[in-house]
């Protein structure tokens, strides 16, 4: 019963769960939920056995495209995405970083042209044995995933 109160049931839409509490609002802005007209329920600082305090976002009547949800991997790689239809989970969507990241991230290099002129950013995602990095398409700087700045 208590669980019901915390996370009201969703009939159709998308649930993004297990977002670290301090990343919740970054996810909100990244998916442009601040300007979205759909019914949205946001819970934060909920107890989670797995990650301490977590956030959850439910967006009614909207199924995000995969390249949209994949952006979440940039800031909350362990978030869980469930697509709901008629109160049932019809898709558990695994998160994987897209090959290219446009606009949402900012280049860490202060001397990068994208930090000085109105140019939208563009990173290639590089995966090798040493881990995952972003490479700025313009200044060619490599950025570790944990050091990526979200706009």
């Amino acid at each position: 019963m208590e669980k019901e109160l915390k996370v009201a049931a969703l009939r159709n839409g998308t649930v993004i769960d297990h977002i670290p509490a301090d990343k919740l609002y970054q996810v909100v802005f990244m998916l442009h939920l601040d300007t979205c007209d759909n019914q949205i329920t946001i819970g934060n600082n909920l107890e989670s056995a797995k990650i301490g305090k977590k956030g959850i976002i439910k967006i009614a009547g909207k199924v995000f495209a995969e390249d949209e949800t994949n952006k979440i991997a940039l800031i909350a790689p362990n978030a869980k995405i469930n697509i709901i239809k008629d109160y049932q989970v019809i898709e558990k969507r695994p998160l994987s970083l897209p090959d290219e990241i446009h606009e949402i991230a900012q280049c860490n290099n202060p001397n990068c042209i994208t930090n000085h002129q109105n140019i939208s950013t563009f990173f290639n995602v590089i995966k090798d044995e040493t881990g995952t990095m972003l490479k700025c398409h313009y200044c060619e700087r490599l950025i570790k995933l944990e050091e990526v700045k979200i706009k």
Partner: protein
Amino acid sequence: MSNRSLVSISDYNKEEILEILDAAADFEANPNRSTLKGKVIATLFFEPSTRTRLSFETAVLRLGGSVIGFSDAATSSSVKGETLNDTIRMVSCYADAIVMRHPFEGAARYAAEISPVPIINAGDGANQHPSQTLLDLYSILKTQGTLENLKICVAGDLKYGRTVHSLIMAMSYFHPTFRFIAPEELKLNEEYRIFCLMNNIPFEETTELNDNINDADILYMTRVQRERFQDLMEYERVKNVYTLKNSMLENTKPNLRILHPLPRVSEIAPDVDKNEKAYYFQQAQNGLYIRQAIISKVLSV
């Protein structure tokens, strides 16, 4: 059109690099031509670099082309405060190709995306300077007769030195063995160490110049700049350790040649200049032929 731009050395594969080096040898044999007759090349130097600009402009003039542009955006009222986008679009109405140098990294890649005419990157901040890399390769080829299986010692600032990073990438096609010689604070960055490992390029790292150059075919020296150091005492120590003196060349191989992208500060003592192993002034001269080859390639003439 803009895919003919040269922004980064990695824009060229091995065949294209060899094609440029071949063409440069032709230009060296016969540098004065009229293949660019009627063409206008813009040289846009958003930060000054007289050496590079004169080399590119001479390359154009010796091929019969004309040059427009500016040598320092700070004094050029026409571009003060104008966005890079607007400057490139404006200039591309007049010129058949644009040579540009810019203080910010990535500026040339961006310009290549918006420009209807080819862009040649003459340096974007600390990032890329492909004509320098190609002239380094040309100098190595000319002095050694081959690019294959050479022992290359690279000394100085391996952390910030972009010429070093591009050299490593470009030489990776030719089975080199590297020895990286740098003080602790200017060691080769992780990124390029991983690049060598992934491409099976053998390398060693050391902190002393001394005897470590005796088995080298090429000694590539770079500038050690004071502003890279927190501690000035440390800078003074490093500066002394990394000064190449003529006496240090006594036991080196006869085919050794010393390269340096110039200008030098104090890393090569003047008494080295008269040694036949000193090649840095001829290296700079080679830049002219390489730039003639690059301009001809991007314009398909």
